[in-house]
């Protein structure tokens, strides 16, 4: 084997052994030599490839490759130097990258176009790595940029907040020196920033002395922070109420404090407290006034009741007194007419004693009627009504007023009997007055009682006195409301009736116009 033969063999072995595709093309891109790796790249046997046009193969991958190859060739010819380019080939759906190094194989004869040797080194993996690295670093950069700008924004924002905040902000070192202060705090205390930065907390503190400030700082360090209210003094000597929130930053050994002027709030709070106290006092005064008014009202109504009592007693007494008067004079007259003997005297004396006993009984009845009940009891409704009726019975008889009673005598109710009887008397007296002022000729009062559906006792008192004006029927139970002349009543009777029945007896009292009269209904 000669040297040439040997060299060829040697190069052929080299072509085979390399993993890179190697192809030698002629001047019209005709494939002259191709190695196994390049055949594998095209996926065809060598016999199919040799003497075919490289462009035919490349064009099946991508049209732009042909252009790139053409430019590569041009550069090779112009420069005569090795050219490197990257080719991307898509085959079987897979993207592969090749680093192509092309070199000009010069012939001995200058006018003959040179062949081109190109090696196709698969850099797909490298490319992928590069790509992911690129992506990664790209993301990283974005991330870093984002975080940086976030931090920057946050920092700018924070410092903007801290320095433009309406709230005061300052930093203090562990010795209590003010090492930073925002405008608000400077303005709050009336110092310039330079002055502020030359001061200690104890210089502006108005409540704690320097030892206390020192202990407070120790406490803040120990607890990591504190929130408290104190007083600080301004440059002008004004005392401010301030609320301070301090955080101890361990890493930088400083304290970070927000401070708020709450002087207005505190003075408002004080004013409010004072107002509340005054209000409380006012309420107590009004309650006392009301209590006195109530008391006075009950006194007034009691006076009225006493007046009525006197009137009723006098009514009861007039007839018997008149009779006794006549009987006394009759004794003298009988003597004069010689009729007086022992029998005559006995009859006269016993008749007079009878009348006197009646007078005495009237007093007892009235005293009993107006006595204050010592305690609540279960009592007969009919009995309580009859007691009230008995007081006016004489009067009714004289005025031709008829009283029709239809009552369930078995009903008993719980409460204060005399108080209840007085209420009934008050209702009957109102009716009597209405009959009188309206000159009702044949007054009729109907008193009924029965068990209501709810099991409560119901008492109705109906008259034919013409009823109450619809405009005032709603006011009947108001205090000081009266239809009577001022000298006759206080207008408290029905108010007190309502109070007693609702509060003391847990019942109701109401009034309505019906059948040409007024009907009161009491449910207890």
């Amino acid at each position, binding site marked *: 084997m000669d040297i040439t033969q040997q060299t060829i063999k040697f190069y052929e072995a080299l072509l085979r052994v390399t993993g890179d595709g190697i192809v030698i093309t002629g001047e019209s891109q005709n494939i002259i030599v191709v190695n196994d790796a390049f055949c594998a790249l095209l996926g065809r046997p060598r016999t199919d490839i040799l003497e075919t046009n490289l462009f035919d193969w490349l064009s099946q991958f991508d049209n732009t490759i042909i252009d790139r190859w053409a430019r590569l060739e041009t550069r090779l010819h112009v420069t005569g130097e090795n050219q490197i380019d990257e080719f991307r080939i898509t085959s079987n759906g897979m993207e592969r990258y090749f680093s192509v190094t092309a070199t000009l194989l010069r012939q001995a004869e200058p006018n003959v176009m040179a062949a081109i040797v190109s090696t196709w080194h698969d850099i797909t993996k490298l490319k992928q790595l590069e790509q992911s690295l690129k992506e990664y670093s790209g993301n990283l950069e974005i991330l870093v940029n984002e975080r940086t700008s976030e931090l920057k924004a946050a920092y700018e924002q924070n410092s903007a907040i801290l320095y433009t905040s309406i709230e005061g902000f300052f930093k203090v070192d562990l010795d209590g020196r003010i090492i930073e202060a925002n405008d608000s705090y400077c303005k709050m205390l009336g110092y310039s920033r330079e002055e502020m930065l030359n001061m200690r907390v104890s210089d502006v503190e108005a409540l704690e002395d320097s030892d206390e400030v020192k202990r407070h700082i120790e406490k803040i360090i120990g607890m990591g922070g504190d929130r408290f209210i104190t007083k600080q003094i301004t440059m002008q000597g004004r005392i401010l109420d301030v609320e301070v929130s301090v955080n101890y930053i361990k890493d930088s050994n400083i304290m970070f404090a927000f401070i708020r002027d709450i002087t207005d709030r505190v003075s408002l709070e004080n004013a409010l407290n004072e107002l509340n106290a005054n209000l409380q006092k006012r309420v107590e005064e009004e309650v006392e006034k009301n209590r006195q008014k109530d008391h006075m009202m009950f006194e007034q109504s009691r006076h009225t009741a006493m007046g009525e009592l006197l009137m009723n007693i006098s009514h009861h007494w*007039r*007839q*018997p*007194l*008149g*009779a*006794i*008067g*006549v*009987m006394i*004079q*009759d004794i003298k*007259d*009988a003597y004069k*007419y010689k*009729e007086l003997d022992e029998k005559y005297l006995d009859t006269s004396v016993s*008749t007079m004693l009878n*009348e006197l006993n009646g007078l005495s009984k009237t007093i007892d009845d009235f005293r009993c009627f107006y006595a204050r009940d010592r305690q609540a009891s279960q009592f007969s409704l009919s009995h309580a009504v009859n007691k009230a009726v008995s007081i006016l019975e004489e009067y009714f*008889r*004289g*005025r*031709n007023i008829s009283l029709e009673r239809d009552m369930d005598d078995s009903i008993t109710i719980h409460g204060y009997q005399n108080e209840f009887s007085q209420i009934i008397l008050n209702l009957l007296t109102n009716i009597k007055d209405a009959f009188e002022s309206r000159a009702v000729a044949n007054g009729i009062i109907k008193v009924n009682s029965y068990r209501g559906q709810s099991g409560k006792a119901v008492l109705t008192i109906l008259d034919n006195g013409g009823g109450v004006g619809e405009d005032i029927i709603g006011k009947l139970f108001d205090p000081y409301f009266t239809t009577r002349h001022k000298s006759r009543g206080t207008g408290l009777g029905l108010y007190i009736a309502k109070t007693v029945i609702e509060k003391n007896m847990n019942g109701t009292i109401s009034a309505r116009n019906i059948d040409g009269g007024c009907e009161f209904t009491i449910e207890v």
Partner: protein
Amino acid sequence: MRDETILKTLSALYVEDDAAMLDGLAKFMRRRFGDVYLAKNGKEGLELYITHNPDIVITDIEMPVMNGIVMINKILKIKNDQPIIITTAFNDDDHVSNRCVNLIKPINVERLIDAIFCCIEGKMREAM
């Protein structure tokens, strides 16, 4: 001293709802008048007045069924100059009449007799 015997020639109507009062004053009147008619209310009184046409009427005001004022007005319609004496416990416009002699209770019998004479003297003058 007046001569009370003259009353024996006269008749009287007494209207009073209180039984003790009616009984008591009835005795006085029976001793003095010829005829005495008693009524417990205005209605009875009016009926007796129409039946007996008494010379003098003595009446209470506050009475059941028909009160004294109503009865008096009805009597005065029948006989415009009928002498009437009112006995009442109440000295007010509702219980007195300017057409009558008004006596306030308790009754003093002497004053009642004065009033009766006052009435019949007018009557006597008329008669003469």
